[in-house]
């Protein structure tokens, strides 16, 4: 009985958050436009000057996916922060419903937004000449990587949104997350960077995630490491972020709304 209630509560909250994201027309169009504009910008404006050992579009698709996910995480953080400053969370909490379903609504909506953005990046990429060599199985593996990454980032965003207390503060998180991918192998290979940056680029979480997708789709990574090897590092990073963020978010949710 209480399980069916939890399912109902979660379903209602998910519907609410998805409705909210669809009706925020400004953010919705930005989220749709961004992948397309970034793709064209990187491939046709910067791409010509960048030598990544092949067509730049073949290199950059995974990078754009994480960049859009970073932007999406910002949207999620703002949505959570806005919600927490609204009296409606008090009402939810004074009702006999699971607090976790409120966060779950945000997470699922965030995941849905990420999947739409990723699909757009892939679609536009294919349209302008991206030619992955992946098998069906490798496509599934890449999709799983993206979903795991988006899930981890969504929980991180929810935790930041709970911590931020205001939409403006939460928004600055977008800037950070949209900047970090640049110092990874998302857009240029790490060996072209100065030593200090290279060290950071090679070891930060975005790099194995990007390289896993790249390896699965194109058959080789930009660092020369085996796909199987970077994939485990990427999964470990994502699981660590997921675990830490979901615990932090649950704790913050209980304590932020308790006073």
């Amino acid at each position, binding site marked *: 009985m209480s399980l069916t209630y939890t399912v109902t509560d979660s379903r*209602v909250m998910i519907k*609410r958050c998805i409705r*909210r994201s669809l009706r925020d027309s400004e953010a919705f169009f930005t989220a749709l436009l961004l992948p397309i504009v970034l793709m064209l910008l990187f491939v046709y404006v910067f791409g010509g000057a960048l030598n990544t050992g092949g067509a730049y579009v073949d290199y950059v698709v995974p990078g754009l996916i994480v960049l859009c996910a970073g932007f999406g995480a910002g949207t999620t953080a703002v949505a959570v922060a806005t919600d927490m400053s609204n*009296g409606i969370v008090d009402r939810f909490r004074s009702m006999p419903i699971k607090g976790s379903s409120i966060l779950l609504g945000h997470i699922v909506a965030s995941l849905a937004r990420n999947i739409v953005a990723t699909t757009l990046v892939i679609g536009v990429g294919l349209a302008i000449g991206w030619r992955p060599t992946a098998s069906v199985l490798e496509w599934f593996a890449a999709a799983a990587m993206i979903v795991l990454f988006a899930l981890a980032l969504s929980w991180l965003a929810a935790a930041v949104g709970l911590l931020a207390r205001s939409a403006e503060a939460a928004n600055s998180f977008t800037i950070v997350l949209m900047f970090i991918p640049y110092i990874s192998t998302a857009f240029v290979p790490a060996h072209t960077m100065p030593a200090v940056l290279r060290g950071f680029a090679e070891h930060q979480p975005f790099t194995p995630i990007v390289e896993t997708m790249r390896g699965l789709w194109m058959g080789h990574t930009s660092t020369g490491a085996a796909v199987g090897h970077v994939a485990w590092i990427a999964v470990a990073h994502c699981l660590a972020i997921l675990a830490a963020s979901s615990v932090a978010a649950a704790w913050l949710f209980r304590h932020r*709304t*308790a*006073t």
Partner: protein
Amino acid sequence: MTYTVVASGICKTFGDQVVLDHVDLAVETGSVLALLGPNGAGKTTMVRILATLVRPDAGTAMIAGHDLRSDPIGVKRSISLTGQHAAVDEVLTGQENLEMMAQLLHLPRRAVQARTAELLAEFDLVDARSRRVGTYSGGMKRRLDLAISMIEKPPLVFLDEPTTGLDPRSREQLWSTVRRIVDDGVTVLLTTQYLEEADQLADMIVMLDGGQVVARGNPDELKASLGAEVVRLQFADDFSFEGALSCLEATHADHRLRTIEVATEGSAAEVLEMLTRLGEAGAPAVKVSTHRPSLDDVFLSLTGAGGPIRNESKEMAR
């Protein structure tokens, strides 16, 4: 006599600030109790504690037969809270808000539709049902908020400053809505800083100031506690005003207008005696008027000169 709320010895401190200091409260079933006090008096904190949103540092409370500490879920099932800011989703429509809340209360699918339609009609929101709540007026938002509170008609409804920021017409409308809820048999605990609101709605008033109960009683008792008539005296200059202040027991004094209010029995002899005394003290009054004590007079005499706008910074800090 049965009580829906019995709270005793509720204490709460935020940091080093004592917000509630051993507050006792009892709300008779089917009645309206108003928690009245200036900003920062602790009204909202008291409501949030009784609604399980804030844990008290000390004290016990039984809400609709459920112990606040040991059975918060039981309490949650028996109450509905309407806060200072309408707790509605502004991006959704009025109808979607009601449906969502009805689903969260686990009403069967068909009951969700039926109850939503009923409440939209009852709270005069039928025409606005398909509009986003963000486009509603303040009064409409509060009505929707109350409609949501009434989905399951809980035994107890908390209204935290339900008419703050509303224009007079919307306020009157909301009052009649609250009266209808009470006629339906719901017990109401409301907070307000408007004395008129307490006078209009409450069967029982508890006045809070600085986290402590300073008075309690029904509106008539509270007014009678000040005597039968309030005499207001106006003075020509600061000298006579100060002189009068030192020889009278004022319930309220206004330095700018140079007026002093004194509670009396209302007898001519008493007023004459007072005027004579002022004349002898060299502080003659230039104008005299009398009126029946209002809750404002009680409030001002109990909470000190600053009145309702005092302590604003406290509330902000919280």
